[in-house]
């Protein structure tokens, strides 16, 4: 990757154009005829550039980026699996792209078939009854699912259920979604095995509890073995169980959340079902419910029918999997994670040593090289050093249960050779840390930029381009 320093605004030359539109005829009436009070006083400061300027600029920008197609991306809880190319072609078919969202259903039978097919397939994979496809991302799905839970209680006149239990290991979106849904958060602790502590849970369950949000396997990659007991306790107390589908990948083809007693769940189609993450969206977070919650499913949480283009891609992936391949998806993801864990646990601290599912968490280096006034290498240092070796870093400093969390998720689409390469580099880095942690403190060395000054960015926010400023 090479450093490229331009912003599109800096390529601008007055009078240059990159558009192709019919010329206005001399006698045409234009927007100048609108009353002055309705018109803006000066043109927006958009760049004036040629088509080649645009193509070259964004091509150069892309070359400072790392994606799944560039290399191994073991980002925990993000399920960076391969994004099949056929799916992109399908999503760009003109007969799908040209559909207006307000067309009557009888004029869009092809789109209807996509939604119905996806509903059936996701119901089969998860054991839920039906799905809504309107949520546009995972956190949006969480919010929608919690709204459904609230609506269920409201419909029964059970109005005091406004508190929700969230484990301390949960993704940050869980408590945030609950807050946006107007729920009060009650935290349940993890036990020494990294699982929800049933004894800590019991006293929390009363008639103000709307439900519990669970991620299973949880963010440590551990299967919540006591889920049967937890489901019984929560249901007995009148609450519902929400399943955060961010970690669904290891269960695909093996275990169905509906069978474990979950009432509501979301899936991240951009994780478990192979649609590309796009640098942070568009995603899709369909929400599935059990039979008794189907009447509450049709919530208006986004403008139209959800991210249809993303749903198309996921459907294509599911059709490729089919019943013959679906059973291997979760197993192979789990195989890869355990393989890396067992290959590195002598050099990186493993806080919980049991079998993991699709991901696992180390708590920093066994030997960080500290001593004699030398500062040891941190998780951040390891992550940055990985960039030098051509790998994306794992998720770091999450979950919050440990101080030096390194969360690794390889996914099923990575070969043994790729995993072996990563393991070797992680071992090399551990060796470097033990011998001379300064190599790591200064990393990355081979990337377009070094570690940027984040404090400066927050203290003196420059959030847009301004001509003539020190940009």
């Amino acid at each position, binding site marked *: 990757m090479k450093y490229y320093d331009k*912003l599109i605004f800096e390529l601008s030359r007055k009078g240059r154009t990159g558009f192709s539109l019919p010329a206005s005829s001399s006698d045409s009436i234009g*927007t100048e005829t609108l009353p002055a*009070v309705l018109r803006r006083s000066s043109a927006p400061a958009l760049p004036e550039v040629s088509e080649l300027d645009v193509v070259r600029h964004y091509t150069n920008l892309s070359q400072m980026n790392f994606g799944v197609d560039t290399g191994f991306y073991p980002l925990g809880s993000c399920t960076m699996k391969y994004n099949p190319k056929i799916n992109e072609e399908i999503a760009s078919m003109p007969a799908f792209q040209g559909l207006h*969202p307000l067309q009557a259903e009888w004029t869009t039978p092809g789109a209807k078939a996509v939604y119905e097919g996806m509903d059936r397939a996701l119901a089969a994979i998860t054991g839920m009854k039906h799905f809504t496809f309107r949520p546009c991302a995972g956190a949006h799905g969480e919010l929608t699912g919690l709204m459904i839970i609230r609506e269920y209680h409201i419909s029964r006149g059970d109005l005091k259920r406004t508190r929700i239990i969230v484990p301390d290991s949960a993704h940050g979106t869980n408590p945030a979604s609950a807050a946006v*849904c107007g729920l009060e958060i009650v935290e349940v602790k993890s036990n020494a095995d990294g699982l929800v502590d049933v004894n800590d849970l019991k006293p929390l369950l009363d008639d103000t509890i709307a439900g519990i949000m669970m991620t299973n396997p949880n963010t440590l990659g551990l299967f919540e073995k006591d889920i049967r007991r937890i489901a019984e306790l929560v249901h007995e107390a009148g609450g519902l169980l929400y399943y955060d589908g961010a970690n669904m990948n290891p269960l695909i083809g093996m*275990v169905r959340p509906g069978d474990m007693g979950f009432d509501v769940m979301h899936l991240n189609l951009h994780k478990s079902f192979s649609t590309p993450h*796009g640098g942070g969206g568009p995603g899709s977070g369909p929400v599935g419910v059990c039979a008794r919650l189907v009447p509450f499913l049709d919530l208006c949480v986004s403008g139209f029918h959800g991210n*249809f283009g993303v749903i198309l891609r996921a459907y294509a992936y599911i059709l490729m999997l089919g019943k013959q391949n679906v059973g291997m998806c979760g197993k192979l993801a789990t195989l890869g994670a355990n393989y890396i864990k067992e290959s590195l646990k002598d050099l990186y601290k493993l806080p919980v040593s049991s079998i993991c599912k699709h991901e696992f968490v180390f708590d920093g280096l066994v030997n960080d090289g500290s001593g004699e006034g030398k500062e040891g290498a941190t998780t951040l240092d390891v992550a940055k050093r990985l960039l030098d070796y051509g790998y994306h870093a794992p998720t770091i400093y999450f979950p919050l249960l440990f101080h030096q969390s390194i969360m690794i998720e390889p996914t099923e689409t990575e070969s043994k050779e790729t995993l072996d390469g990563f393991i070797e580099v992680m071992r090399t880095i551990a060796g470097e840390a033990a011998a001379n942690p300064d190599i790591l403190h200064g990393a990355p060395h081979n990337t377009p930029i070094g570690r940027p000054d984040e404090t400066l960015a927050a203290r003196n926010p420059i959030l847009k381009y301004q001509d003539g400023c020190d940009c």
Partner: protein
Amino acid sequence: MAGFPYFPQTDEDIRLMLNRIGVSSLDDLYADVPADYIYKGEYDLQDAMTEQEVRSFFEDLASRNPRLTVFAGSGAYDHYTPSVIPYITQRSEFLTAYTPYQCEISQGTLRYIFEYQSMICTLTGMDVSNASMYDGPTAAAEAMRMAVVSGRKKGTVLLSKTLLPHVRRVVETYSRYYGIKTAYIETLSGQTSADGLKELLCSGDVAGVLVPSVNRYGIIENLTGFADMIHEAKAMFVLYCDPSTLSVLRTPSEWGADVAVGDGQSLGIPLCYGGPYVGFMSCRKEYMRKLPGRIVGQTKDAAGRRSFVLTLQAREQHIRREKATSNICSNESLMALWVTVYMSLMGPEGMKRLNDICFERSHYLYNELLKTGKFREVFPGAPFLKEFVMEPLTSVSGLQKRLYDAGFFGALETEDGYVSFCVTEKRTKEEIDRLVATING
């Protein structure tokens, strides 16, 4: 695995990996799962398809959707997509990256988000933009929540009755569960009533006001005096905008708004049955730390090189959890790139000309439709840009069916029983004439 292109493990690989782990089979990796939770049945899915079969399957589905020439808008606009855009957004370095957490290898994403923020700011006249929202309606709903959070103990938001219905519905949904009261500002001659607004502001409980710049009748609203009234009541003024039109229309900043929201779809994103689109949200400086979502900022690395990072993260869910300004995590980054490339190609001149073409052609259709004698004017003389409503003098369903049979989608029925038409620069004079001829029968 033999025969499946996305699983690279050979039987020998699996054997070696299981050995290292110290278990004898893949099923042993699930020994921690209670046995009766392991699904034993056959999954109710179809037989696995080859890539060629998948392609045929979708070609067949696609062919069942008749291709219609779109004369409808109401929140989704059929503008032309320059071929450069999908070419750029399909570059896998953009497409297959995650949120730019590792900034040293994500400068491409971070830079285009910075450019996107800059363009949204110049279109709206606002100081700060976030990195994107799911869509326009959710951006509006989040802005209303932002108003209530900033509005010290005030719990009501006012929505104009002239907002598009899908925007109102999403704001209603979010408000219901967050505990925000909503009230509606009356309509006067197809525009938000200033007197109606004034009356509602008197309650003293209003935290925010949401009004459209171009409303559901296609009318460009005259919001003179709104900002003063709203600010006097110590409420937040939020304007819902179509960003494509903002290149010629008075900006939210010029109207005195505090926050601008809307859907970026009109900036060259295909209709695609409603998504993916991209919501935008920008605001005045004083609300910067209340904004939901990601924000990219400029800084330097140790060598002094200009660098970009995710910043002001103390607002966000992964740091603040339940105290975050929003739960949003993934947004619509790739669609932000889409509209950034669009605005780069169009520039100020292209955006202006585009609106002039929409303006001229929609007024042409308006006049031609009146000549058919099958419609009555609803808001004579009201200014519009590319979309308008008329009162049909014949049955709406009959009209729609006739258009559909001729290959058109138009005459969308509004809540008041009018029909709306939208004309973008993609609609040629020949298409407009054919539409009118169809209506004439």
